């Protein structure tokens, strides 16, 4: 009897402790209560964000999209689980986008920009134009008074949105203000509101969420799941490719930022409308369409899988809808896209 009771005690206690541990591990990090912070005006907050120089830091940024779009093969940017970001506070940085078993690394160094793909074993190097970083550093000096810029920015925003500070939040363990942009009622957009969490001390945007009508869960959210401010090791901002890596040199000055894609010319865009119902209009260059086909990406096939065929005064094409945006691609390669319902895109195409 005694033994049985002891056995039962051990079994229950051990299992409970283990289960409790698992429960704690499974608990979402966002369960902490919102911090108490001094009140702040939207304009002041925007101003401080514009003025702030991002300090040296490291963190993990995650993108969480509930766009309602199946993942598309060949589009690595969205299927990245998360990205680790390192910044030295002086314009040099490293971004590592983690795939399950490989990594895309981007290093912005003193004089060069590197990208490295571990799965393919290839690297690209671009030399930065002289003074590129000085320019970056002097931006503050060159630009106008930040508070004045802030006023301008907020004014511009307020033409189409209500800008407010709506409470506080804790993001990656940091206290943050929640800046909320709500489209004005006459804006024809899918977006209900955009929330930006701004670190209360460093005034760095920590998270951006896009909410659409009818749901409480963000349709799109990008932000830090972990962040730590402080100096970073020097070696992170230098890169020398491993032996055996295929290195492609890129012309200096072009495509300075981390971008994925081939060397094909990017599509050229035009804008229709303003505010939230801005529609991007463009034309997919023919060589890109052909290039895509020769790459094995069947553009038309993909459109047929994810889009629905539409017809109208603009001709015929396919519409691809997600929860925060819509794109219309016509048979002859014209493209219209925006955070708007399909109808707005049709009009924009027809009014050309």
């Amino acid at each position: 009897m005694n033994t049985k009771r002891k056995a039962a005690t051990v079994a229950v206690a051990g299992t409970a402790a283990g289960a409790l541990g698992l429960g704690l591990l499974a608990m979402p990090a966002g369960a902490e209560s919102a911090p108490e912070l001094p009140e702040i005006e939207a304009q002041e907050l925007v101003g401080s964000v514009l003025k702030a120089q991002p300090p040296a830091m490291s963190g993990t940024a995650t993108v969480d999209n509930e766009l309602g779009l199946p993942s598309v093969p060949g589009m690595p940017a969205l299927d990245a689980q998360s990205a680790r970001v390192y910044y030295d506070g002086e314009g040099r940085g490293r971004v590592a986008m983690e795939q399950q078993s490989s990594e895309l690394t981007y290093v912005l160094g003193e004089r060069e920009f590197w990208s490295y793909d571990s799965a393919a074993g290839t690297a690209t190097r671009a030399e930065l134009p002289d003074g590129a970083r000085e320019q970056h550093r002097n931006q503050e000096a060159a630009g106008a008074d930040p508070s004045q810029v802030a006023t301008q920015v907020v004014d511009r925003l307020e033409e189409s949105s209500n800008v407010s500070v709506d409470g506080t939040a804790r993001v990656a363990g940091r206290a943050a203000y929640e800046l909320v942009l709500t489209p004005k009622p006459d804006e024809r957009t899918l977006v209900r509101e955009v929330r930006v969490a701004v670190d209360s001390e460093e005034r760095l945007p920590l998270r951006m969420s896009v909410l659409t009508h009818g749901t409480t869960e963000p349709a799109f959210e990008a932000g830090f799941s972990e962040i730590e401010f402080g100096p970073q090791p020097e070696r992170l901002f230098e890169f020398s490719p491993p032996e055996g890596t295929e290195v492609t040199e890129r012309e200096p000055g072009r495509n300075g930022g981390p971008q994925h894609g081939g060397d094909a010319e990017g599509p050229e865009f035009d804008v229709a409308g303003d505010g939230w119902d801005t529609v991007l209009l463009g034309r997919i260059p023919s060589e890109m369409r052909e290039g895509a086909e020769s790459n094995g990406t069947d553009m038309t096939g993909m459109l047929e899988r994810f889009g629905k065929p539409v017809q109208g005064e603009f001709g015929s094409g396919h519409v691809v809808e997600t929860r925060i945006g819509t794109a219309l691609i016509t048979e002859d390669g014209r493209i219209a896209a925006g955070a708007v319902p399909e109808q707005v895109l049709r009009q924009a195409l027809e009014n050309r």
Partner: protein
Amino acid sequence: MEVMTEPARRTAPVSRLVRAELRWIFRRPRTLAVLGLLGVIPVIMGIALAVADPTGSSSPGEGPGAGEGGGLLATAAGSVLVLPIAALTMTLRMLLPLAAAMAGADALAGETATGTLRGWLLAPVSRGRLLLVKALGVATFTLVAATMIAVTGAVTALVLNGADTLYTLSGTTLSIPDALGRIALAVGWVTLQLWAVGAVALAISAFTEHPMVVLASVLGGIIVFTVLGSLDALSWLHPVLLTEAWWAIVDVLRDPIPDADLIGGALKAACYLVIGLSIAYARLVSKDG
């Protein structure tokens, strides 16, 4: 302390029991066969990758290198550091947990079936000590199994690629001590995961005298966990699944090492370890021998 007051020793020293247990484990033909098999896997992987010569093939997201683990295999072909870790990652999906389950199955169920467990209980070895010795035996075996893979993986990669290819997925090149440290970290982390599997196997093993039941349960558990892990609708359940932590091992190949998932996975394994061992203990002390 009790032992001090007794004129004659009432129980054999644990170290002696552990030595006897290890001698038994590593004398068993099945153990040696499994270790041999595990040791050969990285060699086969390395040679296959070298023969297939994947350099130049496949850009991300397409070609034969695409899909889970494909990128890792492509990298493994050229890096001394990556091959042992890639071999650990592949075998951690199924073979290593099964090896741990086998050790756990033989430790209690197998010994009950042959009637040999009784010999130690009558010596006497108290049931708590028996579990301790058995757990240490399983722990040692899993450590040896993981080390075996890492060592043959590293040696194979050294022979195929030479020592100057110690680069990470982030494209940085490591010093030899740093690379060895990372391989050791990977072995340690994988071993901890296997201890969790082994503890659960011991718990099942304490309930049955058929070793195959233990193996089948662990195999079934891994399959069920993998299926649950692949269902997005059950994402709330995923942080609890042991198998969901196992991809984190790839993080030792990134530079700097992102430690969050590794630490989370280690803590998760510790939780399973506690649950498994406490159930095994409870069953063993109340069980008829």
